[in-house]
């Protein structure tokens, strides 16, 4: 993790001093900076600076644009006054400058006839959880430890009344209600020792019924693997459909351009540490530029010493052409094979790479790819 020079500028009034090297401080700084989409490193001195007119964007702000990098005229609108545009660059301020605990952030913006919105809320409470357990997701043994069940990212075309959103419930509905066949690394040793114990205690009738207790009562995919590709929404959700064309690729050149990001949000939909045997997580993020957007929904599974799996679903929209593309990529491989690709053996923590889904996706064999496109021509 890189140390920032300007860390020293930040002082917390009162409260508890923190250790200089602490990551909390860096996370804090990053959060602060994320609220200043211009990428500025200075702290806002007054909250009133956030209150700029919503539909206008100053081209002659204090952060003067250089001649070589012209900012295109603003055409986007910030729909939620809690997430106003930055006075300097016009980017939507996420999280809201008025974020509170428990966090609820619900930014939204529009470009042409496209509206992008997202929502972040805490994990489900007991009542919501009960409802999901007994109704919505009945049969799914234990739900993931952390369910951000009210979170979503939605991309909607208001003119054609068609949109696609990524939400938690629909993602979890796709988790298989049958045995995944995947077992944690120490499963065999564990079961063998139990069976051994059972044999030793065969004459001892006071013991519990080991034979029966070594059966799985609730069969479901405990890795929560989901091939979720988003939920199509809107009045015309059945009118338009994607057409598969695997020869297509997302326009990496266009998406690699460092166009100003007007809207960026990222959220976890669900996460489970698999009883500390790895991680299963569904994460969604979006970036919106003046001409296009890219959304990435990533399911990441690591079963320690056993398996790595990444399921990516990308949505790309070109606003002026009303083109929507969806690309699905699935990666899967043996844990130790992939770990062996990590050559930085001098690292004190060589397994750190296996916690980084980007690194894993890069080094894990791709097992499936699909690309499809949709235009609003009937």
């Amino acid at each position, binding site marked *: 993790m890189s140390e920032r020079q300007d860390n020293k500028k930040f002082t917390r009034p009162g409260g508890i001093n923190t250790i200089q090297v602490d990551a909390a401080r860096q996370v804090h700084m990053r*959060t602060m900076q994320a609220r200043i989409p211009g990428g500025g490193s200075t702290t806002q001195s007054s909250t009133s600076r956030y209150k700029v007119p919503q539909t206008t964007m100053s081209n002659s702000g204090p952060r003067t644009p250089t001649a070589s990098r012209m900012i295109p005229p603003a055409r986007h609108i910030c729909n939620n006054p809690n997430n106003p545009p930055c006075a300097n660059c016009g980017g939507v301020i996420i999280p809201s400058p008025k974020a509170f*605990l428990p966090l609820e952030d619900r930014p939204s913006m529009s470009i042409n006839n496209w509206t992008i919105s997202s929502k972040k809320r805490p994990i489900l409470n*007991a009542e919501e959880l009960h409802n999901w357990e007994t109704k919505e997701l009945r049969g799914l043994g234990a739900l993931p430890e952390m369910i951000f069940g009210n979170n979503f990212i939605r991309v909607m075309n208001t003119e054609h009344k068609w949109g696609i959103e990524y939400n938690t419930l629909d993602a979890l509905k796709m988790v298989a209600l049958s045995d995944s066949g995947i077992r944690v690394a120490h499963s065999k040793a564990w079961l063998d020792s139990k069976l051994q114990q059972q044999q030793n205690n065969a004459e001892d009738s006071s013991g519990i019924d080991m034979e029966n*207790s070594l059966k799985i009562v609730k069969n479901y995919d405990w890795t929560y693997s989901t091939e979720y590709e988003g939920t199509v929404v809107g009045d015309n959700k059945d009118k338009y459909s994607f057409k598969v064309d695997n020869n297509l690729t997302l326009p990496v050149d266009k998406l690699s351009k460092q166009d100003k990001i007007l809207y960026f949000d990222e959220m976890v939909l669900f996460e489970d540490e698999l009883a500390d*045997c790895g991680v299963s997580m569904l994460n969604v993020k979006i970036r919106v530029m003046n001409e296009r957007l890219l959304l990435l929904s990533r399911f990441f599974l690591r079963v320690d010493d056993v398996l790595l799996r990444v399921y990516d679903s990308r949505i790309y929209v070109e606003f002026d052409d009303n083109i929507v593309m969806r690309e699905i990529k699935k990666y899967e491989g043996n844990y130790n094979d992939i770990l062996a690709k990590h050559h930085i053996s001098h690292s004190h923590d060589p397994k750190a790479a296996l916690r980084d889904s980007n690194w894993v996706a890069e080094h894990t064999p791709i097992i499936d790819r699909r690309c499809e496109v949709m235009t609003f021509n009937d």
Partner: protein
Amino acid sequence: MMKIDRTITLLKQGKHITEEAVYSLCLKAQELLMTEANVTHVDTPVTICGDIHGQLHDLLTLFGKSGGVEKTRYIFLGDFVDRGFYSLESFLLLICYKLKYPDRITLIRGNHETRQITKVYGFYDEIMRKYGNSNVWRYCCEVFDYLSLGAIINNNIFCVHGGLSPDVSTIDEIRAIDRKQEVPHEGAMCDLLWSDPDDVEKWSLSPRGAGFVFGQNEVNQFLHTNNVELIARAHQLVMEGYKEMFDGGLVTVWSAPNYCYRCGNVAAVLRIEDDLQRNYTIFDAVQPQDGVGNAIIPTKKSQMDYFL
């Protein structure tokens, strides 16, 4: 004793503790914990606390909201380290209190108080970041090996980190375990730190292929056999801070508010009065503030990036 007071002051301020100081604290802690039973007897009134996970500021709130160690007896159900940014400070603070007030604080081992788990879930990384070597991590892990496996309050309430084990029907069987070791992958000691309650008819295998889940029948059986009325455990995140199950025969207590700095949950501690009445105290996460008084939500990876 002067030295411990000074360390406590430093810890509360989040200041650096020297490697030598940690070493001497850990040695003293081992000497003290070695003399404790696997299942410690504790008298009422006492406050039961769940997972802390390195959230030092919230641990300080916990003490503030529940009376403080000067006036109150505490049982901590384990998982002091990992995930939060202040695992070391949180654990050392508890150790210091234990040394200063040995009869007022009981520390039970959680599944995160192991070498294997702390290497993956943050504590080891934190030590490498703060000290540049793993010595302090090793000293702490040696203390982990001496932590108790459970506690019993007034012979009425059994406290444990995870849950029950099919290998354990009486509390005396827990007393017979040789606990001074790294937590094994199976057996009674492992189950006590790992198992979860669920709505199952009987002991059953977790679909992961290792570990048990237990249901109301097992809880009732255990309560009856041991003549206790409640199992207090932690180990699982609960949005409301606590959750009673099985007609009040089991409770999960969770004491890390806004877990991982993003779950938005509240935390709870459970105070058991002399008449065994249960009183829950709920508390929120500390709200860090920026220079102009706005609340800051530290979220992971909040900075925008040009992902592809």
